[in-house]
């Protein structure tokens, strides 16, 4: 807390994950529900008191101590009324006078990483992993999750219950050695963090455009992972990718909320320090010779960031990098489409237009829209106005995001005007 009584930005949200992690580590994942309740309860107590008296001198310690006491009381209560569902799990020796493990900071970082790995458990569905990670590690409540991921609250609630039941049942051990178990889980964890970031970046069907909070949380959790990740190259590559992404946020949205395509972005709005940070991590990843998916994507992003203006983009190299990505994931419609975009700039729009006519998308959401939008743009650039408008009409009928619709309408207008 600074002198003006202000808490650090997202202090509650971050500390929520920290406390859950520390408590789960000491008292066990079997008590996850009780732990989450105790933490929520702690914030409510803080709300009651701090609203009137301002935050205490040591807000972190205050919260941790209160949470721990609340949990101990709840666990004692459960133990006494042993028909409670969680009572079968053995209780560690409880005492409010023990040295406080919750306050130890590095223990809490370890705990958060272990919890993150648990939340990305392969037994959970992909979307459920994103939800439970945001809920447990980032303190997102049900209404926030519903809003961020465009789901209804009931569905979010059910998904969280389902995930918590699995986590309890697996009775995952969060101990000193659990960090060692990180390595085989690392790719999955990185994938989930990247998906989490993308949820914020795309803000699917959400007129807000970029949900900065989700992107910020993804970046925070990835950074957390870095010191313990072995090999760290994958985390470095992911960090580079995320930094290149956030660096370009300011240019991506217009003041009035429209999407601005790469071609029209004012590159002076790109955040140079963040781009530099991206290059730093990219460099780290490069040294290890790791050439996984995140690395290739980061490399592509780095080429965009390095180009002083759109026409200076090295499309030939970007095309080749997409080809390497396609070799890794031959079935990804998104990668194949992106490769063709690069090709249309490297070789010219007409040959790509022909390829797009024979292109089939998989069923994944949004790809049919992308294909139509891209067809329209490629025809537009080739000077085929009629074909372009037909494709844009199709794209409009498939658009699921108001920002996407606006962009397509704007492009249609330019096509007709020319």
């Amino acid at each position, binding site marked *: 807390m600074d002198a003006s009584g202000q808490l650090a930005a997202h202090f509650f949200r971050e500390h929520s994950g920290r406390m859950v992690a520390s408590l789960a580590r000491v008292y066990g994942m079997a008590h996850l529900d009780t732990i989450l309740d105790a933490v929520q309860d702690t914030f409510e107590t803080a709300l009651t008191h*701090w609203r009137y008296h301002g935050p205490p001198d040591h807000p972190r310690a205050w919260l941790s101590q209160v949470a721990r006491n609340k949990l101990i009381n709840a666990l004692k209560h459960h133990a006494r009324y042993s028909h409670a569902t969680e009572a079968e799990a053995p209780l560690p020796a409880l005492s409010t006078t023990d040295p406080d493990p919750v306050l130890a900071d590095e223990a809490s970082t370890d705990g958060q990483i272990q919890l993150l790995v648990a939340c990305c458990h392969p037994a959970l569905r992909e979307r459920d992993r994103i939800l439970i990670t945001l809920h447990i590690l980032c303190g997102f409540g049900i209404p926030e999750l519903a809003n961020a991921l465009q789901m209804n609250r009931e569905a979010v609630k059910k998904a969280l219950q389902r995930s918590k039941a699995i986590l309890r049942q697996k009775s995952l051990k969060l101990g000193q050695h659990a960090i060692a178990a990180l390595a085989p889980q690392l790719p999955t964890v990185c994938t989930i963090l990247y998906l989490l970031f993308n949820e914020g970046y795309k803000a699917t069907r959400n007129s807000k455009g970029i949900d900065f909070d989700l992107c910020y949380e993804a970046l925070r959790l990835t950074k957390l992972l870095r010191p313990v990740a072995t090999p760290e190259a994958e985390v470095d590559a992911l960090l580079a990718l995320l930094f290149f992404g956030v660096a370009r946020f300011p240019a991506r949205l217009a003041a009035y909320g429209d999407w601005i395509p790469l071609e029209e972005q004012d590159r002076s709005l790109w955040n140079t320090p963040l781009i530099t940070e991206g290059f730093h991590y990219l460099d780290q990843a490069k040294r290890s010779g790791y050439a996984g998916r995140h690395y290739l994507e980061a490399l592509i992003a780095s080429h965009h960031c390095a180009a002083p203006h759109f026409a200076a983009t090295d499309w030939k190299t970007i095309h080749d990098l997409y080809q390497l990505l396609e070799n890794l994931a031959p079935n990804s419609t998104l990668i194949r489409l992106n490769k063709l975009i690069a090709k249309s700039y490297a070789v010219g729009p007409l040959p790509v237009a022909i390829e797009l006519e024979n292109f089939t998308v998989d069923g994944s959401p949004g790809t049919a829209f992308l294909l139509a939008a891209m067809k329209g743009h490629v025809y537009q650039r080739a000077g085929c106005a009629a074909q372009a408008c037909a494709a844009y009409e199709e794209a409009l009928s498939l658009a699921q995001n108001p920002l996407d619709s606006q962009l397509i309408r704007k492009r249609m207008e330019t096509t007709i005007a020319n």
Partner: protein
Amino acid sequence: MKEFLMLIREDANYGELSAEEMQACIEKHYRWVETLREKGQFKEAQPLEAGGAHIRGKQRIVSDGPFLEGKECVSGYYILLAESLEEAIEIAKGNPDLDWDRAVEVREIMPMED
């Protein structure tokens, strides 16, 4: 300068509030009270425990009182300093609790007649 009691009435159930919102609520209050202090409009404020007792009549019948969960109850009070009820109302309108759809009640504390 007159003293006014401002009671905060709210549903004792914060269940739907997220960590982020709770932090925002605290910070708004902190900033608001700071501005009141600067203007000399703030005397004190305290939260009240949700539990308590209701004692009634000659029989001294004790019950849990109207503090049932999920029901609107008094969650805290402020003592405000203002020249008039109108001014006190204007001050009370600035209470961030209203942004969370809580209700406040302002009453002048009757001074002892000289």
